[in-house]
């Protein structure tokens, strides 16, 4: 017997059960608590996607029921339902799904999703999964009990029939499995659904926990998210295997029409250029292209100057809805948001959105809370290995008024939300827990962080200035007058003029009049001093019952009915002072309070301020 024949004896197709056992971790079923979360996540993702595709505001019901040692997981939605013939394969065949080959922003991508939950359920409890679905009010609901044939990866229908269901349309799936229910952590079903609610403010989600506690995440908007569109692949994002597959299965008869018809950013002219670059006949039949020729074709793709892929295919949450989502799940003092423009990595369009919540119920000590999302799906695990976290760590947060002891994620009463939307999210592994360190994505997240960081800094400095001003108001209104009164009582003297001190503390403009009388003449000095940190230009009015003499510097004098208004135009730089002098007779002259025109009254001490 030849060696190859000997080896062939041992070669056999591995069953899906074996495949599952070996890949528990990447499928998200590696621990008892996580198995429950992953099952709920896959079912909820499906429900949200289905509702969005049919333009239905999602109303999702999740219930976890304790069943002996295990749990029964129920997820029900008001989606469009599933056509009967599709049900077995959707739920009970791995790697079957509508989105596997589509380049479109969607929650699920591989089609492993819910069928992995079905498989886990039957492996741990031996029980089938029950699916009830209804496609419209005029249809009967169908009910299936399904298992996966682990040898063939084909669905096995244990039971199928009609059922009475009061929903007009929708799908309900019930699975029994081993697991363990946790509540308190962020990595829990509750934590997951709360995060889902933040980035899907158009959805209402109800969770009934094993102890009967009901949590409802209310919807914050009736507006559906903008639908995402399917796009053709961009040549820069292609890999050889994918290209060969497309060449084999295309229905185009010629290479040039294959190129212009199958890729985005490729028209007739570019198609011609690619063929020239790859030294291929544009008229050749795609199926006849050899491996070597395909390699040349791919090289030509990379060498071409091409337009970016279309970017309107993505559906951002939008700043308004991120704000609404944050507001409904957290009580905070301040929210900043930003949506970055669409950008491209390796031919894949992507877009980053950032939200920052500050203060309120958020804890001031400890690291800020980081909520990561990819295509509206919360990422709960492997925070440390994620490009989003790395981008946050790259920022110098001190610049934005947050402390960052020892570098890394900053500390403070802050929650950061980062959403990356793309037709193809580059995950670090199949378990889709963390975004890979693609430089373009890291850079966009950093830019978004800096934008909300700047907004936070502005908010905090405004808040500070306000509390500083308030503190100073307390000093000048409550404390200084009492101090001066008490000192005057102690020393049995007149109360001192506190205006100069008030002006200094508040950074105000000070006007102070002092009079020295000599030989029947009163020498009047008006001291004007600018203690503020901005230049001040104003008019100073001094109204006296007589016309003043020896005025220095010269003043405009206006005769009033019962006296004279002396008017100076004064400009003072910060810290500058000026003396104005004049004389009047020392007897029988009356003064009014000096008047400053052109400075708000709260910035003036020792004079009346008028508009």
């Amino acid at each position: 017997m030849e060696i190859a024949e000997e080896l062939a004896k041992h070669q056999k197709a591995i069953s899906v059960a074996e495949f599952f056992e070996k890949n528990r971790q990447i499928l998200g079923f590696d621990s008892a608590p996580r198995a429950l979360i992953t099952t709920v996540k896959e079912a909820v993702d499906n429900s949200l996607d289905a509702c969005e595709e049919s333009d239905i505001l999602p109303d999702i019901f999740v219930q976890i029921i304790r069943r002996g040692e295990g749990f029964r997981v129920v997820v029900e939605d008001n989606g469009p339902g599933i056509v009967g013939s599709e049900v077995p394969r959707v739920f009970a065949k791995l790697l079957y799904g509508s989105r596997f080959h589509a380049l479109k922003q969607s929650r699920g991508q591989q089609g492993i999703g819910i069928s992995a939950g079905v498989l886990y359920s039957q492996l741990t409890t031996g029980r089938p999964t029950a699916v009830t679905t209804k496609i419209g009010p005029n249809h009967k609901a169908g009910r299936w009990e399904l298992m996966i044939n682990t040898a063939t990866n084909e669905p096995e229908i244990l039971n199928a029939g009609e059922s009475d269901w009061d929903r007009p349309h929708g799908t309900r799936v019930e699975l029994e499995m081993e697991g363990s229910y946790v509540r308190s952590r962020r990595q829990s079903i509750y934590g997951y659904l709360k995060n889902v609610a933040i980035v899907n403010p158009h959805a209402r989600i109800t969770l009934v926990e094993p102890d009967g506690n009901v949590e409802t995440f209310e919807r914050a908007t009736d507006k559906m998210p903008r639908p995402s569109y399917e796009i053709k692949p961009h040549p820069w994002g292609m890999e050889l295997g994918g290209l060969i597959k497309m060449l084999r299965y295309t229905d185009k008869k010629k290479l040039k029409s294959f190129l212009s018809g199958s890729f985005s950013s490729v028209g007739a002219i570019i198609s011609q250029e690619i063929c020239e670059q790859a030294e291929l006949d544009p008229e050749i039949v795609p199926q006849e292209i050899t491996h070597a020729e395909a390699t040349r074709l791919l090289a030509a793709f990379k060498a071409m100057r091409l337009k970016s892929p279309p970017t309107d295919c993505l559906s951002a949450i939008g700043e308004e809805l991120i704000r609404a989502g944050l507001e409904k799940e957290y009580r905070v003092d301040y929210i900043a948001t930003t949506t970055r423009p669409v950008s491209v990595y390796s031919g894949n369009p992507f877009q980053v959105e950032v939200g920052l919540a500050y203060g309120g119920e958020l804890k001031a000590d400890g690291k800020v809370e980081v909520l990561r999302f990819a295509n509206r799906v919360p990422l709960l695990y492997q925070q440390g290995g994620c490009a989003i976290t790395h981008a946050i760590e790259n920022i110098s947060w001190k610049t934005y008024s947050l402390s960052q002891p020892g570098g890394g994620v900053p500390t403070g009463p802050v929650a950061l939300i980062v959403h990356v939307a793309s037709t193809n999210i580059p995950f670090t592994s199949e378990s889709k827990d963390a975004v890979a360190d693609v430089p373009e994505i890291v850079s966009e997240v950093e830019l978004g962080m800096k934008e909300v960081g700047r907004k936070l800094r502005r908010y905090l400095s405004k808040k500070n200035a306000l509390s500083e001003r308030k503190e100073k108001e307390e000093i000048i209104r409550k404390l200084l007058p009492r101090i001066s009164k008490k000192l005057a009582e102690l020393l049995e003297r007149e109360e001192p003029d506190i205006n100069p001190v008030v002006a200094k503390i508040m950074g105000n403009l000070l006007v102070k009049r002092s009079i020295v009388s000599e030989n029947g003449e009163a020498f009047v000095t008006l001291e004007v001093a600018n203690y503020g940190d901005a230049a001040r230009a104003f008019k100073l009015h001094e109204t006296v019952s007589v016309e003043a003499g020896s005025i220095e510097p010269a003043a405009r004098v206006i005769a009033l009915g019962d006296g004279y208004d002396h008017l100076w135009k004064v400009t003072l730089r910060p810290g500058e002072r000026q003396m104005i002098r004049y004389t009047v007779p020392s007897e029988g002259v009356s003064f009014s309070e000096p008047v400053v025109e052109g400075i708000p009254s709260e910035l003036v001490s020792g004079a009346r301020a008028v508009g």
Partner: protein
Amino acid sequence: MKDAEATKERLLGLAETLYDQFQKGIVPHLALPSRTKSNLEYDQEGEVWVYGDQESVRSVKTVRGAKSVLKTSYLVELLIKEHLLQNRGSTLREIYYISENWDVAKFGEQAESDRLVEDLEILTALLREDFHVRPEEDGATVFGPLTISEKTRRGERTIHCQEDVGEAGYQIPFNVDNVEFKDHDAKFVVAIETGGMHARLIENGFDQEHNAILVHLKGQPARSTRRLIKRLNEELNLPVLVFTDGDPWSYRIFASVAYGAIKSAYLSDYLVTPSAQFLGVQPTDIVNYDLSTDKLTDQDLQALRSELADPRFATDYWKEQIQLQIKLMKKAEQQAFAGKGLDFVTKTYLPERLSEMGMI
């Protein structure tokens, strides 16, 4: 001790400083030395620890500072109008309660009013006794061959501190400067930490046998106790020996008698007895007399280490003793001597230790 008129002038001088600052358009403020360990300096001349040049400024620019200046004004008014002009006084705790009526100038806790009284002492270079402010508890007691006369509200009393007092001894008044030393027959002063040991020495007749004045420290000694010890040392030229437990906290009691305290270093000149010597219990005694001991706790260890870094303990004697104690990991109370018999401390330990120190 200043008379009431001079004290009033000093306090008014403080008010005047603030008033003038208003008049001149200077933001009113008071400057004080900062009362921290890092601002302690050794004064060669007086052989005591005093404050250095670091200052902390209380300015009305901040709410805190303005409140503190306002409270100072109220306190000055109280001291002048209620104390000095009426010849009355209050305790520190009473001052805290009096401030109930001061509205925004009310003290938050007694520690705050205590501190402000100390601040006034520094700002006026006077003592709280000059302000007629007294602590809640009076000083401890004295027993020994000493005759004093004390000015009291009911006239002058002459007292012999063995013959005219009960078993408890003579109670040190809060204002020690009202006490005059008339006569004595003493060779030295022993300041004792615990009441138990103080009573043991009196019961065993140690004061008579050795002509010793026994001062009870009552733990960390009050100002009046420290002042009395200093005056016994200075005016009567008596050596002072400090007898405490053998643990780091007791060494600090010795330090406050001999070197002064961080919080009240401005009073060092007035309260500190630089020539005071540490009698025991020494870590070496633990070994030599094989005393019953307790294990050092983590806090004890930390305190010992911090003493090694304290400028006040930077002598060869203390380094040796403290390092030995850290090695032993043990501490002993004064009462540990009782394990050898009730007379052991007065018949054996003290005589041996005192002759070692050259006292007898």
